[in-house]
């Protein structure tokens, strides 16, 4: 008996606390209200998240973080996804921390990571551009060295939670080279910098994505994270590690939707019996459970591989494909099971539907990850 999918004592405690937190601080009405804002998270709510220690969950204790393994962070994100709690948490505490940890030099880790853990700095990643791509060849924004400073120029489209972030991690080209990976540098850009404008991209399913225009934005040389021209690998490492945590958030969302639909199918009576007893409805419920479970196990397998330092790339591509599709499908099916009221903007299923559509594309959609997995399994 070696296979053990049970959570540890601490993880169970964390899970229960996070669900309690959601019940107290982010009930449906709060989430609905937050979804309508540009910020997705109030100062008060962010302060509470920071107080819990969650902003530093994966940051090592040496940098004033809490030093928990990625699996524990997955448990937390799963609970947050049950809301789904909007806001900058994933982008700053997970992806932002990982970028600094993977790409930053020691001094930068010492300077930035404690600020992230204490919630004083909130990061987001400004990577994609009008030529939408998660690959290095999509980076066209330019950064030119000038008297020890850098001057950035370009447009970053679909930057998440840009109104809440205090700083953007901007991927920009410092050198043109035949190999698109070569010549990309990462910059920590203060969101209040001169020459920088932030505008929300409208749309029911666009989450909180923003267009960031960098019009000759001057940043000091110290804003360069890691080595000049060599930022891409660290960024890729960080994104790859963050993906299963984003998937954990989707697992939480999928699970919540399954539970809502299941409860409805048990209690809603039509033609003299609960609708869940009709085979058509039952089939949909089973399909939902199938999706949610597939997302869960691929996600936790990837996290386990990362925490135990096993090669994890295959599992990560796989879980991004499966979890994104699962969340999307589970929501679609829930609307069919519940119909009517589930389409209203107040209904929790509609929160999830919006999140599932937006997150489907974030950090690469299933087609992209399928392609990556293919390349890995059958190298060119």
């Amino acid at each position, binding site marked *: 008996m070696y296979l053990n999918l049970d959570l540890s004592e601490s993880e169970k405690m964390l899970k229960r606390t996070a669900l309690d937190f959601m019940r107290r601080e982010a009930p449906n009405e709060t989430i609905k209200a937050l979804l309508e804002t540009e910020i997705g998270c109030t100062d008060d709510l962010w302060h509470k998240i920071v107080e819990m220690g969650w902003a530093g969950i994966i940051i090592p204790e040496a940098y004033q973080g809490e030093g928990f393994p990625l699996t524990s962070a997955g448990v937390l994100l799963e609970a947050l996804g049950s809301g789904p709690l909007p806001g900058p948490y994933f982008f700053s505490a997970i992806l932002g921390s990982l970028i600094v940890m993977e790409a930053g030099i020691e001094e930068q880790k010492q300077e930035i990571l404690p600020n992230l853990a204490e919630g004083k700095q909130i990061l987001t990643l400004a990577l994609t551009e009008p030529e939408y791509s998660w690959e290095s060849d999509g980076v066209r924004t330019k950064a030119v060295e000038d008297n020890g400073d850098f001057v950035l120029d370009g447009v970053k489209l679909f930057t998440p939670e840009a109104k809440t972030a205090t700083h953007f991690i901007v991927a920009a080209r410092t050198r043109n080279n035949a190999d698109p990976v070569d010549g990309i540098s990462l910059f920590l850009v203060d969101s209040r910098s001169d020459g920088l404008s932030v505008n929300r991209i409208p749309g029911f399913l666009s989450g909180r994505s923003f267009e960031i225009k960098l019009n000759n934005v001057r940043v000091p040389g110290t804003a360069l994270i890691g080595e000049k021209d060599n930022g891409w690998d660290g960024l890729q490492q960080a994104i790859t590690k963050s993906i299963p945590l984003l998937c954990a958030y989707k697992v939480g969302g999928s699970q919540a939707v399954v539970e809502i639909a299941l*409860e409805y199918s048990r209690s809603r009576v039509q033609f003299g019996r609960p609708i869940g007893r009709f085979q058509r409805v039952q089939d949909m419920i089973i399909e939902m459970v199938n999706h949610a479970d597939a997302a869960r196990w691929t996600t936790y397998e990837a996290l386990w591989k990362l925490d135990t330092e096993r090669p994890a790339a295959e599992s990560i591509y796989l879980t991004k494909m499966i979890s994104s599709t699962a969340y999307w499908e589970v929501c679609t099916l829930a609307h069919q099971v519940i119909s009517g*009221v589930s389409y209203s903007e107040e209904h929790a299923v509609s929160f999830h539907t919006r999140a599932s559509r937006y997150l489907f594309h974030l950090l690469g959609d299933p087609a992209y990850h399928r392609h990556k997995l293919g390349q890995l399994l059958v190298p060119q």
Partner: protein
Amino acid sequence: MTEHKGVLIIGEIIEENLAAVTLELLGCGRTLADKLGERLSGLLMGSDTRPHASKAIAYGADKIYIMEDPLLEDYQSDLYLAAVEKMVRRVMPKIVLMGQTPMGRDLAPRLGFRMHAAVLMDCVELDIDTQTGRLLQVRPVYGGNARAVFTSETRPQMATVRSKAMSPLERNSSRKGDIIEIKPEIDPSAMRTKLLEKVKEEVAGIKIEDAAILVTGGRGIGGPEGFEQLEDLAGLLKGAVGATRPVVDSGWCPTSRQIGLTGKVVAPDLYIAVALSGSSQHMAGCSGAKHIVAINSDPQANIFREASFGIVGDWKKALPSFIEKVRELLKE
């Protein structure tokens, strides 16, 4: 061993009046005493208890003991405990009943442990087992999700009774009974827990336990501002506004408005439940309502299983037109 006989109720005088629950205890105590073929007595404590004693007799008691002392004016746990213990040891009843009130919740358990006699709290039905002559005590458990029937293995058999669970008798002023004064012999030095002050949290208008129509809001109201709309509706209907435990715990409403297992028990004719889920703990306080109307955006909310009429939708959209139409109908 002395034989235990009769039923004794411990009455309460609140704001110069016999408490409603005391009248209910007299009604229920009368029935039990008649089934046993024994007598119903009562105890009243305070400073001017005689008029209340006559009233208690009119409501069913055969005998009322009174204990008068200025120190007994308000409930003081150590003094009341000593006084009631003395009374129970003297009367040696088969059954002792108290109301499930702030006093009963404090006094009954301590009395039970002091006398090594079991107490069953918050009973909603009491009966005599015709075969054994024992007191059958029915109380809700698991927040009202289940009910349990108990008997006590010790004497006297003690219980506290939920308010509004029993009905008082019709007042009959021609009923005869004895009023017996007992010297409380209070020892102030025994008072370790001392009541210093009573703070009233005034609620304007009708008290929730007296209102025929109640408008109650739950956590879904979202904040204290929303309760102003509920006040409007309650004012229009000459009713009162109630609240659930989460609402009170969040400080949106004073404690005196809390309805439920840990708050007040109400039984209005019409109970309008707005943005509350209808947890068992809440329903324990309002299941006596004749008609429940629910407004909630979650069609799966438990309140729809308890309500006779309901709307599924956002209360913020429903309430303004509801209020407007009610105003129109009432003008006709």
